[in-house]
């Protein structure tokens, strides 16, 4: 039963995509969209219960363990929220002509193809399948990023597809090297399966695994948006349609992190945990430092959020690099917290942009007066992103810090703290100016639409809940996922 579910999960969005080819009506498309996301969500909950009681499940090249489940849950929650948000967002976008009514079908089809490839990425046990699915996410999302069809969108899409495709070629090379090391020990059969490699990992040749890990780190790190390979990220996040931006930042870059974690566990076993940890620390610190100045001077709200994602991916890499159970637990919790919060921030920013007809921070003023609920949610998301207590990101950042202090990484901690404080001030300054004050003339005065609000409230509820307390079942899941990584 549970094994069958592994194959049903990626089939749900695939079949949905095919089903959507039969209609052009916006309402019907939206109904199918929300329905399919709800089914995916429900099936994942069933799978989660099976895994909690029966341990990891595997069938063929797909496998789910607690680690994959953390990412899968984040994926289905965000997909559901995006589907609900899209209903109202799309109505508005069609009205103002941002989206053409006659080409909506291909948008939905691509969205579900994108979700399907991400589901496979998360569930892949075979490292080759992982790579193929990851390149699949690049192809589908590249078209979505350029979807508006204007020059800037296509420029961003080109940069994205070129940089990430070349990036993950490095990932494939790293995969081949790890495979070569594994065949040397266990022969050809099953030498691409992560779970099979993990069984023999301590016997792998450390030299080749080390080079393989660096290739993988650069490769999937490109896709994760780690600096200095992050060049595609701000452009893509700012030019994509808002629901796509939310998925890119919320889950796609986390999928790449999952791939890195899979190889980190292999490398830790083969050449000791110190080597991959050091590599992760270097990339993590670089990301946090590189993102900071761009956040301070940013004029474009979606670019601001994009650069901010680079900082947070860096924090996750730092957590994994500090290591130990505290660091890894913190990193995994941060993946979920940031995914939920950043999607919320993109949603809130998207409705504000639609209201003012501009992405410029200086144009969006006095949001609270014209859209009180949306403005409150944007402020809450910003407070959480900045790392304010008692929101969820504060909790996971604190864990990462504690792990760093526990292992005596004083220099890294000092740099990290300075950057976080600077970003805290910069982000709240920008968002505060947008929310408070007198509304500019550009502000639309229409009533806030219900469906975007519903999507945002769903995410806000999870964000607030995870800040106050971590439910026992979720805590157990994270604990077990941490064990998968730390061993």
């Amino acid at each position, binding site marked *: 039963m549970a094994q069958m579910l592994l194959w049903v999960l990626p089939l749900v969005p695939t079949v949905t995509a095919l089903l959507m080819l039969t209609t052009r009506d916006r309402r019907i498309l939206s109904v199918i969209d929300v329905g399919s996301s709800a089914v995916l969500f429900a099936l994942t909950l069933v799978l989660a219960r099976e895994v909690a009681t029966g341990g990891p499940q595997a069938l063929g090249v797909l496998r789910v363990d607690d680690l994959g489940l953390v990412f899968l849950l984040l994926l289905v929650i965000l997909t559901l929220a995006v589907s609900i948000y899209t209903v109202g967002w799309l109505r508005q976008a069609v009205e103002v002509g941002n989206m053409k009514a006659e080409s909506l079908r291909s948008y939905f089809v691509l969205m579900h193809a994108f979700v399907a490839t991400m589901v496979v990425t998360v569930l892949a046990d075979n490292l*080759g399948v992982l790579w193929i699915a990851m390149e699949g996410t690049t192809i589908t999302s590249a078209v979505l990023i350029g979807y508006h069809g204007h020059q800037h969108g296509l*420029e961003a899409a080109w940069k994205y597809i070129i940089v990430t495709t*070349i990036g993950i070629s490095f990932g494939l090379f790293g995969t*081949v090297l790890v495979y070569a090391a594994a065949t040397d020990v266990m022969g050809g059969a099953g030498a691409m399966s992560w779970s099979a490699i993990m069984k023999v990992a301590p016997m792998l040749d450390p030299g080749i695994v080390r080079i393989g890990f660096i290739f993988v780190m650069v490769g999937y790190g490109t896709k994760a948006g780690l600096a200095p390979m992050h060049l595609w990220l701000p452009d893509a996040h700012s030019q994509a349609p808002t629901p796509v931006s939310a998925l890119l930042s919320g889950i796609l870059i986390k999928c790449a992190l999952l791939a890195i974690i899979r190889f980190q566990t292999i490398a830790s076993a083969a050449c000791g945990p110190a080597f991959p940890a050091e590599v992760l620390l270097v990339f993590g610190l670089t990301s946090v430092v590189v993102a900071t100045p761009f956040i301070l001077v940013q004029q474009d709200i979606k670019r601001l959020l994009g650069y901010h994602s680079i900082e947070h991916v860096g924090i996750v890499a730092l957590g994994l690099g500090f290591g130990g159970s505290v660091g890894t637990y913190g990193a995994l919790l941060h993946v979920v917290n940031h995914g939920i919060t950043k999607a919320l921030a993109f949603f809130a920013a998207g409705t504000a942009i639609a209201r003012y007809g501009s992405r410029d921070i200086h144009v969006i003023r006095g949001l609270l007066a014209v859209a009180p609920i949306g403005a409150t949610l944007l402020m809450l998301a910003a407070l959480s992103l900045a790392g304010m207590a008692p929101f969820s990101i504060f909790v996971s950042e604190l864990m990462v810090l504690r792990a760093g202090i526990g292992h005596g990484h004083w220099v890294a901690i000092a740099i990290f703290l300075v950057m976080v404080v600077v970003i805290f001030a910069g982000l709240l300054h920008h968002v505060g100016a947008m929310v408070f004050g007198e509304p500019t003339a550009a502000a639309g005065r229409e009533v806030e639409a219900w469906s975007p609000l519903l999507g945002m409230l769903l995410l806000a509820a999870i964000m607030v809940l995870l800040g106050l307390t971590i439910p026992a079942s979720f805590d157990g899941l994270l604990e077990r996922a941490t064990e998968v990584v730390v061993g």
Partner: protein
Amino acid sequence: MNPETVQTIIDDLGALLLFTMILIIAARQISHAIHAVAAQSLLIAIAGAVLATATGNEDLWVIAGVTLAIKAIVLPWVLHWVVRRLNVRREIEPVIAISATLALAVGVVVMSFHLSASLGPVRQAITGNALPVGIALTLLGVLVMATRKTALTQMVGLFASENGIFFTAMAVTQGMPLIIEIGVILDVILAALVMTIMVLRVRSTVDADIADLDRLRG
């Protein structure tokens, strides 16, 4: 064939592959670069056939055949078609001088051989010098993409880069699982398709090269 012969053939093919890579970097006209990458793919297909005969691994025949059909014939043909369709007047536009790129390329090749010489025992898992050649091709492909401003040249760099990975993957003693290789090639085709559409779309709307757009900054 005995292992020494195979190793010699693979090493010779590796040298030819590096030579085609130099041709791609030195090309002053886009069509020359496309010819060179087609020749490179042909050499990869030959390497696949040689390894298939030597190891008796039948999957490698399929991979060699697919490489020949897709990467040596179809994709270069598509690129030529786009060149004709766009009527590209501007030829290759390097960001830095071609001679400087060549000097960098020499450094990359030396570094790749140095790197894999330091590996020692691992080398037995991969035939001959396939590892350093593969690393060099992959990195040089990236170099081409980073130092050229036209979309088509960037695509040629991408294909060259992927050729490097394929060469190493074939030479891993056991070969890669067939289904994975097919999946990878499928991804390459789809990516090339999407890129081609983007290039044509930008050219038809603003009459500019998509890789030359630089409005998004900061």
